[in-house]
């Protein structure tokens, strides 16, 4: 039986199992904390820093990212101090300066009173916020590691190796689904699925019975294995089975 710990968040008490991420504990206490790189279905990464909160462990006060901070002691947490809001505003300004055209960033920034990019910051025009959700999804959940980061610092980007089509990509589209800015798209057209951002094109299987294209060929083996079915049975779509 896991050790239970009671913490106080914005004056509210909440009890969770030891090592529960603080963000989860706060959400259970119905306290909302902004996030950009967090998705409860994917391993936490702690890079956008928006989820920072103030934690007092009786020994000292610290600013920590709540999505990766494990609850281990009976700490006192404040999630919306003036200091925290100040940092969050600057973080949002930095993100907005990087991706000024992205609705996802604009909307989050608006919640903190930011209606336009800070003129003092150098502006870029990227569509990717480098949250890494796509990479973690492809590696941890889908398990093919078709995409990853490249470079470091300002040159950091999510790419396929050599920015060319990676044959290990099974065109499942999970990356597109999880992306907060929706900058990874895919299109199914004329019997082909295309993920433009990854230069990936793959033919789709046409159902023997109804003729509709329903599954990328690259997914045939993977699906069959997961469902415990014969790969050949993928020639008939689920509607017609």
């Amino acid at each position, binding site marked *: 039986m896991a050790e239970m710990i009671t913490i106080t968040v914005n004056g509210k008490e909440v009890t969770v199992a030891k090592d529960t991420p603080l963000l989860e504990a706060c959400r259970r206490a119905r306290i909302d904390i902004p996030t950009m790189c967090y998705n409860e279905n994917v391993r936490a990464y702690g890079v956008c820093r928006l989820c920072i909160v103030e934690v007092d462990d009786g020994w000292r006060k610290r600013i920590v990212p709540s999505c990766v901070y494990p609850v281990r002691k009976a700490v006192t947490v404040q999630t919306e101090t003036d200091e925290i809001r100040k940092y969050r505003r600057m973080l949002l300004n930095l993100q907005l300066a990087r991706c000024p055209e992205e609705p996802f960033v604009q909307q989050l920034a608006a919640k903190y009173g930011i209606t336009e990019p800070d003129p003092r910051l150098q502006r870029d025009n990227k569509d990717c916020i480098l949250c890494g959700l796509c990479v973690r999804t492809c*590696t941890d959940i889908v398990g*093919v590691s078709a995409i990853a980061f490249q470079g470091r610092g300002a040159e950091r980007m999510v790419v396929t*190796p050599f920015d060319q089509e990676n044959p290990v990509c099974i065109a499942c589209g999970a990356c597109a689904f999880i992306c907060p800015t929706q900058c990874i798209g895919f299109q199914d057209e004329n019997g082909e699925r295309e993920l433009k951002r990854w230069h990936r094109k793959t033919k789709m299987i046409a159902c023997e019975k109804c003729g509709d294209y329903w599954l990328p060929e690259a997914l045939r083996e993977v699906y069959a294995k997961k469902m415990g079915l014969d790969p050949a049975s993928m020639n008939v779509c689920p509607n017609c089975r």
Partner: protein
Amino acid sequence: MALEINKVDPILEKYGSQKSALIQILMDVQAVFKYLPREVLDYISDKLNVPMSTIYNVATFYKAFSLEPKGEHVCSVCMGTACHVRGAPVILDSISRRLDLPPDKTSADRKWTLETVNCLGSCALGPLVVVDGVYHGKATSAKIGKVIDKLSKDEG
């Protein structure tokens, strides 16, 4: 000329084909091929059972690696603090102009690579420029210019 992939096998063996030795393996491979050819990386990905995306990430993260062949001659300018304070940026500028090459690039004819290094740890010699492995301490634009001209001329 066919890429001698078989040169990779003894390197993999030396490190027991351990995934954790990827960086050491890539360094030894680069010492042999003078850069990291794509085919070699594919081979390593296969043998070590490490995704290509991871290898590409490692190869582009660390400054030691080059995915493109370096020039016949390599000129490294130390940009450490001591060298900076003794005038390294001015020297880098002059070399860059002389070779008509921006820093951290290789010339189109593959004759020269100009790179910057963040401290070689020989601060008493600053400003320090290393040309083809030879340390030139207390460098001046004029001195290095002569070294470069001589090497360029010797090529014919």
